[in-house]
Structures are given as structure tokens and as C-alpha cells.
């Protein structure tokens, strides 16, 4: 076997991904340094760091960064916590477990735009929505979720989508637990809390790392849920960095400022990636 072949087989993937990384990055760096408005394509003066200054001093910017982190943190927290609880609940056989599994995984396959509209119109509508009716049934004042708690609403939608994923990963992981060890612990009179603390949770640590990694990859760029429901508003209340860049690029047509923002997002993602790859890389080695 010659040594060239493995490299030859690897080349297409590496080349494509390298181009996919370097071309947009290079163009973003170039655009971010010039004046580049899509409506005035002939004005291409050198702008220096003006675009960066504009993007970073925009009052929306710090709100968007904060919202991105809040969205990311809340969804990961909610899905991991509830996911572990549900996984523990359905770990051992009970009547209809197969159907419960199918019901639980379903939201994961729903496309984000459907998810968003389903919640926006049918669940959260302040007059006809299901939640409003439940609130009314208990004699409470219905809440206009998307206006009063826009970021929270987005968090609910995204969590609903990702909870099934976390749950099923945890269920899969629990199935590989050492049952004899568990039996032995029970024989020795370990109560459920002790079993949880010394057996279940340590066993789940690795799958928690996996869930956090994958969710981080996908949630840094939550877009469709915001685009179809709140449009980032009211004001900037539910704008994340991804949506802010989109607004600059395709609503304000300012590609220069959007590119400066994109570079910022890339730096943000890289910080997260560096941190995470260390964490998960160690876990995957074992």
C-alpha cells in the first residue's frame, strides 16, 4: 500500500472544508475594512476600523451578546436538567415505553420554522392560544408571551426542540450501565439518592459533555426561530448576534458592518470551540 493513497482520499474533504473556512473569512476581513453597502455597490473606499467601531458601539451589540449567552446557557441548562430527569424516569421498562420514546423524540424532527409558528400562533397567542386558555381556566390574566417575554419565548421553543435530543442521548447512555453493580448497591441498601449520586450521575458525565458540545454547535446560530416569530424585537429584546448580523446585512444592506460583526461572531465561536474541544477531546479519548 503506498503512502499517497490515504492522503489522496482525505484531500477532497480537507480541501473543501479549508476553502469553506478560508474564503468567507478572507472576504469578511476584506469587506470589514471597506465601505460596502449593497445599495451603493460603486462606493468602495477604505474604511479602516470604522465598521468595527460602528458594530461594537451600536447599542444593540451588547444586548445581542448578552442574549446569545442567555439563550445558549438557558437552553443547555434546561435540556440537560430535564433530559437527565426524563431519562431516569424512562430508563427501566414500563407499559408503553416504546410509544413514550417515540412521542418524546418527535419535536426533534420538526423544522425550526414550523416550531416557531406553532408556538407563536397556536400556543402563545394572547387571545386564542392554548396557553392563554389554560391561564384563563385558572383565572389568571393571559400573557402576551412574545411581546412581554420575547427572549423567554424563544428559549421555550428552542428547548422544546432540543430536549428530546438530550433525553435520548441520556437514555442510550443509561442502557450501558453496569446492572450488576446497580443490583449490588440496591442489595446493600443504597437509597435512590445514593444510587443517583454514586452510580447514575457519574455514568452520565460523558454524555452530558457530548450533549453540551452538540447543542453549543447548533445553538450559537439560532436564527429561524427569531426570524419567524419576534423578528428580534420588540426593540432588541430577542436579538442574538446571528440575527444582528443578518439585520445589518440584509435589512440595512450594510455588508461592511455585517462583515465586521461576522468576524466578531467567529472570534466568539472560536473561544467557545477552544474551550469545548479541550473538554470533549479529553472525554472522547478514553
Amino acid at each position, binding site marked *: 500500500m503506498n503512502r499517497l493513497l*490515504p492522503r489522496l*482520499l482525505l484531500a477532497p474533504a480537507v480541501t473543501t472544508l479549508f476553502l469553506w473556512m478560508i474564503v468567507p473569512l478572507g472576504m469578511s476581513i476584506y469587506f470589514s475594512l471597506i465601505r460596502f453597502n449593497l445599495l451603493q455597490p460603486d462606493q468602495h473606499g477604505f474604511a479602516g476600523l470604522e465598521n468595527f467601531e460602528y458594530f461594537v458601539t451600536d447599542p444593540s451589540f451588547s444586548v445581542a451578546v448578552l442574549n446569545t449567552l442567555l439563550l445558549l446557557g438557558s437552553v443547555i441548562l434546561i435540556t440537560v436538567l430535564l433530559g437527565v430527569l426524563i431519562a431516569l424516569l424512562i430508563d427501566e421498562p414500563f407499559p408503553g415505553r416504546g410509544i413514550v420514546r417515540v412521542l*418524546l423524540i418527535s419535536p426533534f424532527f420538526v423544522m425550526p420554522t414550523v416550531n416557531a409558528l406553532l408556538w407563536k400562533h397556536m400556543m402563545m397567542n394572547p387571545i386564542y392560544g392554548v396557553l392563554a386558555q389554560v391561564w384563563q381556566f385558572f383565572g389568571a390574566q393571559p400573557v402576551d408571551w412574545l411581546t412581554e417575554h420575547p427572549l423567554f419565548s424563544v428559549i421555550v421553543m428552542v428547548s422544546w426542540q432540543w430536549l428530546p435530543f438530550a433525553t435520548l*442521548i441520556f437514555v442510550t447512555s443509561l442502557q450501558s450501565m453496569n446492572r450488576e453493580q446497580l443490583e449490588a448497591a440496591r442489595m446493600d441498601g443504597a437509597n435512590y439518592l445514593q444510587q443517583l449520586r454514586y452510580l447514575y450521575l457519574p455514568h452520565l458525565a460523558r454524555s452530558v459533555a457530548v450533549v453540551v458540545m452538540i447543542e453549543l454547535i447548533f445553538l450559537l446560530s439560532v436564527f429561524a426561530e427569531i426570524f419567524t416569530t419576534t423578528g428580534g424585537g420588540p426593540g432588541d429584546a430577542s436579538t442574538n448576534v446571528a440575527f444582528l448580523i443578518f439585520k445589518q446585512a440584509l435589512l440595512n444592506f450594510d*455588508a461592511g458592518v455585517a462583515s465586521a460583526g461576522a468576524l466578531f461572531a467567529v472570534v466568539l465561536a472560536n473561544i467557545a470551540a477552544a474551550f469545548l474541544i479541550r473538554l470533549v477531546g479529553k472525554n472522547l479519548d478514553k
Partner: protein
Amino acid sequence: MARSRLTPTLMARTVLAWAVALLLFFPLAFLFLTAFKTELQAIAVPPELIFSPTLESFREVHTRSDYLLFAKNSVITSVVSTLLGLLIAVPAAYSMAFFRGPRTKDILMWMLSTKMMPAVGALVPVYVLAQYSGLLDTKLALIILFMLSNLPIMVWMLYSHFKDIPPEILEAARMDGANLWQEFRRVLLPLGMGGMASTGLLCLVLSWNEAFWSLNLSSAKAGTLATLIASYSSPEGLFWAKLSAASLLAIAPIVVFGWFSQKQLVQGLTFGAVK
């Protein structure tokens, strides 16, 4: 497994598990029922649970927006991008799993790190490139972008599956004089089928549901179902029956598909880290 007796704990666990599952599934059940109602029944307070189902909304969705065109776009973009991705990812994963070099691990990590770049970081360059090359609102642009954004995950999943195949089997085939194609066809394909299937399935789901690039780069001509549904945002959103019918048509194929392949999908997504 022996059938466990219906102890009080088991009863409580069963009831609780079913309650949680039904609660989380409720929005989808509601969507499903509403799709078969008339607009008036749809917003009735309290919601009607028993009604005579009608296909009126489906008919209206079909005549108003060319559902079949969007569905066709969804099928083509997700299937072609998945196949294209497999074509590039399988050789790469094979090479890294069976010819490990000192830098294999670094390459894998680097590939994953490209997935961490948020898509929006590439929005302006991709938009400009698509505009200049005339690829705006074409299926080709979506196919390429779906493939690119799934490629790192595909390589990772395939790599972690191939790594579980004993390399001795491939070596033995090589010793017997099998060339690369025979090795692939006779050994890797049968042994790695499960891995390739679950990778392909996951990418199909991800591409079908992809919304960022389809919303930004496509509209009337190449729009996928995700784009079609987004157009129901408002004020059509108040027509629940129509919204539900359109949504149901958009998600039903992939949800049913997902039900049948859920075990493989989840196992694949753990990158082999969770057995």
C-alpha cells in the same frame, strides 16, 4: 425479560412518564388535529376535540402555494447534498480510521471547529458570491451549502463508526490482493453500512429542516418547505387550519422517517462517545 409486577412505584412511574411524554407531544398533536378542522372550529373556545375532519385546508394550501414545488426542492436538496457529502466524507473517514497518522486527531478537531463557526459569519461572503455567480435562489447553491455545513459532522460520525471495525479484516483483504474498490465494496460497505446509514439519515434530517441558508438564499424558485412555512408568518398565521395543514405537510415526511430511524440516529449523533 420477565414482566415486572405492577407495583405502586411502577404505576407512579408509568403515569408520570406518560404524562411528560404527552405534554411534550401536545403541540404536535394539536397541530395535527387543527389541520383537519375548518378555520372556525380551529379557534373555537374551548378547543373542539371531537369534530368531523375535513381536507379543506389541505386543498387550499395546495392551490394557494405550489406545495409540490417546494416539497420537490426539499427532497432534491436534502437527498443530493447528503449523497454528495457521503461521497466526500466516506473516503476521508476511511483514510483517517485505517491509516492513522500523527496528525489525524488534529485534522479531526480542526474539521469539527469549522462547524463551530456560526453560519451567519459566512452570510455576506456567501450572499455576494451567490449573487455574482448567478446562484441566488438555485437548488445548486442550497445543495452545496447544506453539504458544507454537514460535512464536518459526517466525517466525525463515519470516523467513529469505522474505528470500531477491526483493521485486520481490511488488511487480510489487501493481502489477498483486493484493490481499493474491492476492499470498499466487499469489506467496508457491508461492515460500515450501519454507520453510513445513520450518518446519511441524520444529514437528511438536518438538511430537510435547515432554515438559515434556505431563508436567506432562496425564495420562489428554489425555496424549500422551511421557506414556504416561514411565509405563513403573519397575518396568515391567524388562519390556524391552513397554517397547520401546511406545517403538517412539511414535517410529516421527516417526522415519520425519524420515528423509524430514531435509534440509529441518536447512536450516530453521540460520535461513538456514548455506547
